[in-house]
């Protein structure tokens, strides 16, 4: 794993050289201010002007945690039968989304949601398609690892086995203490724990920053020729009152779910787009009731969290259940019709978002919208070796 070695070694070189730094670090450790230092020393690699994400106070970013999390993210031993890693459903070339409609767990049990892209997940105040209570990646990781309905990685009740496997692996014997020095001093039980496992996984996912699409170069860095003329027409359409796309897919992350250092009060958005309406009352299929499953409110039926549109042209299929295969169909057969189910029950769903207005596209306009959405693809992100499988032999 040359990439891993060099990155970790570089991180150590950067930090550990002058004896004065070591002394200062020791002093700060004694004063208990190390987390503050660790937070400010991590380089997010953000372009000029982009705000830093907010991280939980008990899990500041570090290169060492990102490295450990990356190894865990790609490690199939995190599943009961060694068949599934996080990366099985979150594939880098798909912007860490899943090309399958629905995933399947270790038991072959089908999942219930299309796996979402993890690009810029650090800016999301609420995770998953519909659960308003999952607000940190640390806790979210428990769902695929230990969830039982559906079973995904199938590790429920097997955490001791899992920790034992990590504790006896020479790679992790090196990475865990680097990432969690304080826990390492407290002993193996603290070091190889749910707390460190989930914090490392979260740190790696937060490092998945994608701001280098042609549209970023065009919009934020003044390269007027970075996107095509067609994409520029698509941009105007996207941000028009005619299509209303931007009301939900707005801001630099193209979603109305956003939190960052300059906007610490989280903005969240869950919407019913009229994808389903089984009974002219707006009912969604069983098991797909969205936010209503958690609030119990009828008015929350079918409301799902707005996904980011960054890299959207590589994250097919679309919607919470992966029920639309390609972007053209998403626009033509769903949004242009003010919701796929708009007339399935004779009249529009009473629960459909008021921003679902429907629109007619003239010749070429669909191509323009697709060109704009394709300009949101960050090829460097999809191929960045820092995000790639560290276990793969070259």
């Amino acid at each position, binding site marked *: 794993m040359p990439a891993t070695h060099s990155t970790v070694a570089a991180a150590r070189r950067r930090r550990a050289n002058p004896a004065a730094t070591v002394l200062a670090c020791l002093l700060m450790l004694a004063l208990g201010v190390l987390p503050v230092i660790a937070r400010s020393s991590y380089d997010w690699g953000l372009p000029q002007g982009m705000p830093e994400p907010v991280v939980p106070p008990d899990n500041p970013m570090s290169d060492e945690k990102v490295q450990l999390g990356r190894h865990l993210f790609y490690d199939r031993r995190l599943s009961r039968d060694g068949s599934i890693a996080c990366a099985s459903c979150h594939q880098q070339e798909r912007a860490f989304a899943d090309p399958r409609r629905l995933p399947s767990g270790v038991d072959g049990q089908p999942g219930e949601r299309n796996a979402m892209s993890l690009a810029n997940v650090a800016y999301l105040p609420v995770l998953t398609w519909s659960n*308003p209570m999952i607000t940190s990646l640390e806790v979210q990781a428990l769902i695929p690892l230990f969830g039982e309905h559906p079973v995904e990685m199938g590790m429920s009740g097997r955490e001791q086995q899992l920790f034992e496997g990590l504790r006896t692996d020479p790679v992790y014997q090196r990475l865990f203490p680097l990432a969690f020095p304080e826990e390492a001093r407290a002993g193996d039980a603290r070091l190889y724990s749910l707390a460190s496992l989930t914090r490392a996984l979260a740190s790696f996912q937060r490092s998945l920053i994608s701001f280098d699409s042609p549209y970023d170069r065009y919009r934020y860095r003044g390269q007027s020729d970075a996107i095509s003329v067609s994409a520029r027409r698509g941009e105007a359409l996207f941000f028009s009152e005619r299509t209303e796309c931007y009301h939900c897919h707005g801001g630099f992350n193209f979603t109305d779910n956003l939190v960052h250092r300059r906007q610490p009060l989280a903005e969240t958005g869950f919407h019913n787009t009229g994808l389903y309406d089984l009974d002219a009352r707006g009912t969604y299929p069983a098991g797909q009731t969205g936010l209503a499953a958690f609030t119990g409110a009828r008015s929350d039926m079918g409301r799902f969290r707005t996904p980011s549109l960054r890299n959207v042209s590589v994250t097919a299929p679309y919607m919470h259940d992966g029920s639309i295969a390609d972007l053209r169909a998403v626009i033509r057969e769903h949004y242009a019709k003010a919701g796929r189910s708009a007339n399935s029950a004779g009249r529009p769903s009473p629960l459909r978002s008021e921003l679902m207005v429907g629109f007619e596209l003239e010749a070429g306009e669909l191509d323009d919208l697709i060109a704009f959405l394709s300009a949101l693809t960050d090829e460097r992100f999809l191929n960045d070796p820092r995000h790639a499988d560290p276990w793969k032999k070259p």
Partner: protein
Amino acid sequence: MKTFNRLCAALWLACASWPASVHANETQTVEIRFTAEINGQPFACGRQYGPVGASASTILPTDYRMFVSEAQLIARDGRRVPIHLTEDKLFQFENIALLDFEDGSGPCRNGTPAVNTSIRGHVPKGDYLGLSFVIGVPFARNHGDPTLAPAPLSSTAMFWTWQGGYKFIRFDTGLAGSDAKPAAGHAPDAGHAATGFSIHLGSTRCASAARTQAPSACLDGNRMAIQFDQFDVARHQVVVDVGAVLAESDLTRNTPKTSPGCMSFPGDPECIPVMRRLGLAYDGAPPGEQRLITRR
């Protein structure tokens, strides 16, 4: 491990009944014993039970655990006196105890070798007649960060992450075979054939008004309050019998697109008889008499 636990329990009882130990301070030790059964038969991993449920199925259980909290003795004058649990970094924390009836053997392979069939602590010396406790984890402890929680709240098998909190009861079983024909009026393929049945009790619909904050309440707390006005700690034990909860259930079928068995989520037909027999209101249906817990 089991032998070790029994030895510990025996030692504990010996201490508990040693008058000198209560002399020094004005407290007395208490141990409330629990026993898990299925239709009156003692529970053991690897053992088959039948007939169980309306389907008269033969079952092979794979897990049997539950959280008990807020245990109190009821004094002669009616006062409720909390049992101060002895924290052991394993099964007891604050006023919460995990009862773990499985020993990780055979079909219980997702379990742990250690078992725990009692709650242990002390109360001020006094004259106590009754017992009350809650099956569940108190709200204040149910919605913290499970990755940082101390044992027994660190057990991933009891995580209820998707809804937030913990499973209060976890009973899982496979079907060894069903002796009964499908109920009249149902074609064999009317529901989806089930290969097992689970009872996972936990709080549901816990979202808070502000969506990114920890929940402030759950619409369905699903905690079971148990009380025995007459409970002699030295003589009685608490019997947990899931067979009585399953009595009206057809264990051979599961409604498509719902959890296997009953996992407390609203809208699951398999939950209707189960929740009624746990003494809990469910999805608009009133609670029945709870059948899980009795005294012997």
